[in-house]
């Protein structure tokens, strides 16, 4: 498979008879492309470097989306295509070799170099997969060169991570041993927490993909049970299945309920007894319940509207509806993978509108009409909606923050309560100022 293959665009729905109706929309999308995943991937994999082959727009996207806030020299760069590169593709390959040589000479510490395809490189059909093979031959054993596409004509936002991880799967060593593999980038702290929990259940050798060092890949084989920590990893899951692994179906580890179900799915697949699991998760589960109680007071009964962004929308909506008591008005997702979302969709309350794809203007019309208490949306929409009087939660934060597992269930809830708290605080104060003057001066 080339790195530009993506998951089957419409796999048959499985195991979920009463799925809610889905509004499929076509129109302007307002979602990041897959390149954006590099913002966290280049920080997570400390020996990796990401070279986007694209336009000035790609470079500008990368620094505008988050880059200007990161002061260290990032472990990503863009090989910007110029007029002459568009003419002859053979030359473009020479140019690419030259750029990669210069880059690796400057950064000899890079052990995995990802060539990342973009819209322009896809449209003019530069074959980065072949280029990666050629360059790998040249730079191994020091540096492995891989390729994937983060182009916005093929991937949305988090699908970039999927394509990246999928490109790693063929490189993973084979194993026959039975063990658990958690896939999806997690904050280091969260990864440690899960590792501790699984270890408490006797699963000491639980592996994570991506690892903090991309070069040290975990092994995979028929004994591997894959637990998805993020919902957007269809291509990676499929690639692991191609290597013989079994992908487990479970809700995602958001909120106490999701975390418990997710941990159980992983542990049970490796033969841990339910009682053992119950004992291991008891303290964390109790803490989560306690910590979530006050958030629930602030959120219960409030309505929420999700614009499509990261594919985390459905699991998060499930958490907000079931554990926080919120009313779901519309849950937009850029892309709905029914199989990997089956366990989540089964938990959604009746009557929720799911939407897939986007016509941003019409969706804005719906949001304005519904006037939800909270709107979860991207950074391009958040301030305009705030200015219209709607409280918003910027969705990209949900990808960056530690929100998985028991210990962060309340942090996750807090991301949704905070905008409401803030609005209440500021509005209250302004009302208050109709009081008489403060007794500031006296003696």
């Amino acid at each position, binding site marked *: 498979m080339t790195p530009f293959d993506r998951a089957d665009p419409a796999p048959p729905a499985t195991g979920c008879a009463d799925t809610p109706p889905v509004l499929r929309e076509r129109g302007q999308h307002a979602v990041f492309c897959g390149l954006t995943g590099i913002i*966290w991937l280049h*920080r*997570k994999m*400390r020996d990796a470097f990401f070279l986007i082959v694209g336009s000035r727009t790609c470079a500008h996207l990368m620094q505008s989306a*988050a880059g200007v*806030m*990161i*002061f*260290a*020299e990032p*472990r990503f760069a863009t090989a910007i295509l110029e007029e002459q590169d568009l003419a002859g593709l053979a030359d473009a390959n020479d140019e690419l070799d030259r750029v990669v040589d210069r880059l690796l000479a400057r950064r000899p510490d890079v052990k995995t170099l990802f060539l990342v395809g973009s819209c322009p490189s896809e449209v003019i059909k530069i074959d980065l997969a072949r280029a990666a093979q050629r360059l790998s031959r040249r730079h191994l054993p020091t540096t492995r060169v891989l390729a994937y596409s983060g182009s916005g004509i093929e991937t949305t936002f988090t699908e970039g991570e999927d394509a990246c991880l999928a490109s790693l799967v063929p490189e993973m060593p084979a194993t026959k041993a039975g063990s658990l593999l958690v896939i999806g980038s997690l*904050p*280091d*702290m969260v990864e*440690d927490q899960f590792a*501790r929990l699984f270890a408490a259940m006797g699963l000491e050798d639980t592996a994570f993909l991506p690892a*903090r060092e991309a070069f040290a890949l975990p092994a995979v084989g028929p004994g591997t049970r894959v637990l998805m920590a993020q919902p957007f990893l269809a291509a990676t899951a499929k690639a692991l299945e191609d290597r013989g692994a079994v992908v487990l179906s479970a809700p995602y580890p958001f909120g106490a309920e999701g975390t418990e179900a997710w941990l159980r799915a992983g542990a049970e697949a490796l033969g841990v007894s339910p009682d053992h699991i119950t004992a291991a998760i008891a*303290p*964390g589960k109790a*803490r*989560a319940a*306690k*910590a979530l109680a*006050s958030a629930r007071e602030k959120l219960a009964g409030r309505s929420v509207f999700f614009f499509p962004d990261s594919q985390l929308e459905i699991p998060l909506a499930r958490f907000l509806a079931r554990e926080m008591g919120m009313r779901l008005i519309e849950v937009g997702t850029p892309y709905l993978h029914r199989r990997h979302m089956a366990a989540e969709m089964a938990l959604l309350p009746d009557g929720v509108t799911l939407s897939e794809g986007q016509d941003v203007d019409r969706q804005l019309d719906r949001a304005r009409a519904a006037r939800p208490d909270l709107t979860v949306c991207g*950074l391009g929409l958040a*301030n305009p909606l*705030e*200015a219209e009087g709607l409280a*918003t939660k*910027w969705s*990209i*934060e949900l990808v*960056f*923050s*530690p929100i998985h597992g028991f*210990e962060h269930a*309340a*942090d996750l809830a*807090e991301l949704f309560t*905070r*905008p409401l*708290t*803030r*609005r209440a*605080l*500021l509005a*209250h*104060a*302004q009302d*208050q*100022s109709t*009081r*008489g*003057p*403060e*007794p*500031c*001066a*006296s*003696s």
Partner: protein
Amino acid sequence: MRLTVWTYDGPPHVGAMRVVTAMRGVHYVLHAPQGDTYADLLFTMIERRDRRPPVTYTTFKASDLGADTAALFKETARAAYERFRPQAMIVSPSCTGELIQDDPGGLAKALDLPVPVIPLHLNSYQRKENWGAAETFHALVRGCCRGRTYEPKPAGARPTANILGPAALGFRHRDDQVEVRRLLGLLGIDVAVTAPWEASPADLARLPEADFNVVLYPEVADTAAKWLSRTFRQPFTRTIPIGLNATRDFLREAAELAGVDPAPALAAVEAEARMPWYSASVDSTYLTGKRVFIFGDATHAIAAARVASEELGFEVCGIGTYGREFARDVRAAAERLSLEALITDDMLEVEEAIAAARPELVLGTQMERHIAKRLGLPCAVISAPVHVQDHPARFAPQMGIEGANVIFDTWVHPLMMGLEEHLLTMFRDDPEFHDEAAPSHLGPAAPAPVAEDTADAALAWAADAEQELKKIPFFVRGKARRNTERFAADHGLSTITIETLYDAKAHFGR
């Protein structure tokens, strides 16, 4: 004796100098040894004034003490009058002068100068700078209004107000009065006299003609405003227009005193103010609940607490003042926030209180900037005493509409920005983008190590718990440590484990 490392207030005669230096046509003869002349540089250097303060010092020496220091005073006062020809003079001893008991007031009177000579009684061993300023301003107002009587204002005239309080070396006095004048303009109120700032004794004599007084800095103007109120039935405003809510209150209060409709002015605030949008815009969400410690003069501390909690969504975790004269007001403000006010002029006590509160932001004076730096905390300055850098060239009021804009920028600037906080949270072990990095928009700097002492010696952290604590980003780590230790103490635990850490987190919330 009181052991003092840094002082917040200078001696009372420095307060007197702040008043006369702001004015025109007044001269101050100070019976003082030569060392006291240092005070000139406060004005010429810290405030970059282009004139010497209108002060003549007798600069007596040890050898004069045996001889006639009273004669020295008279000679100095006469020469000062001849040279500067002021409209009025004030005279007083400095602290050393008080000890030699020469009675400058009586001596000056004996000179029979052709202008009012007002003696000050400043009690240098009891009183301090702000009190000295208030007393001096009061004495000057009384002295210059001598013989004036209450006259009812003619009906139908345009309302007028005086602006009272702006003095030399104040915190943003130069610009606050410009902004307040603009606010009064929005209400259609004319400013009769601003004092002491650039007012002459003749201007002070015109004070009773206005409809009411606007007290910008009670520390300086409260005593005089009360005397004017008693003597000439002039009401005065009590709201300090720092922050937009207080600005709205101020407009309503002034409108009521002037008998005008505040609505157009209030509408102008909504139209012009940028701070509400900056505070409501989503990048500011992360400001919510940040714990701030506030210390300063009473006026600025009380105002800062209101702005912090009502307009920026911070949580005030400590408030205090060095201004004992207004302790009651600060205590009341603290009570509204369910806090106990810290009333002290001992900087070491303030340091202890800040260290114990572990705030995420300190709002204070130049002294709290010292403290915050030592503790590795972000800090913004909200009150005198301040540094030369806090007398900027640019227009930088604290009051009114633009003042609120300035406050937003100034208080938010020392903090790590929202998205940056999250990147740090996610990848704090990254060797290049790590936890010890300073906020990216600040200078070539790494934060000083935050003081991370365990408060309670009876508690021990297990090694893995200490390790886990270090995974929490530094800007909230202090709070996490404090909460965990409090939780352990409350539950009688002697060792803190990872479980304790997370139990405490669940207990206290984020």
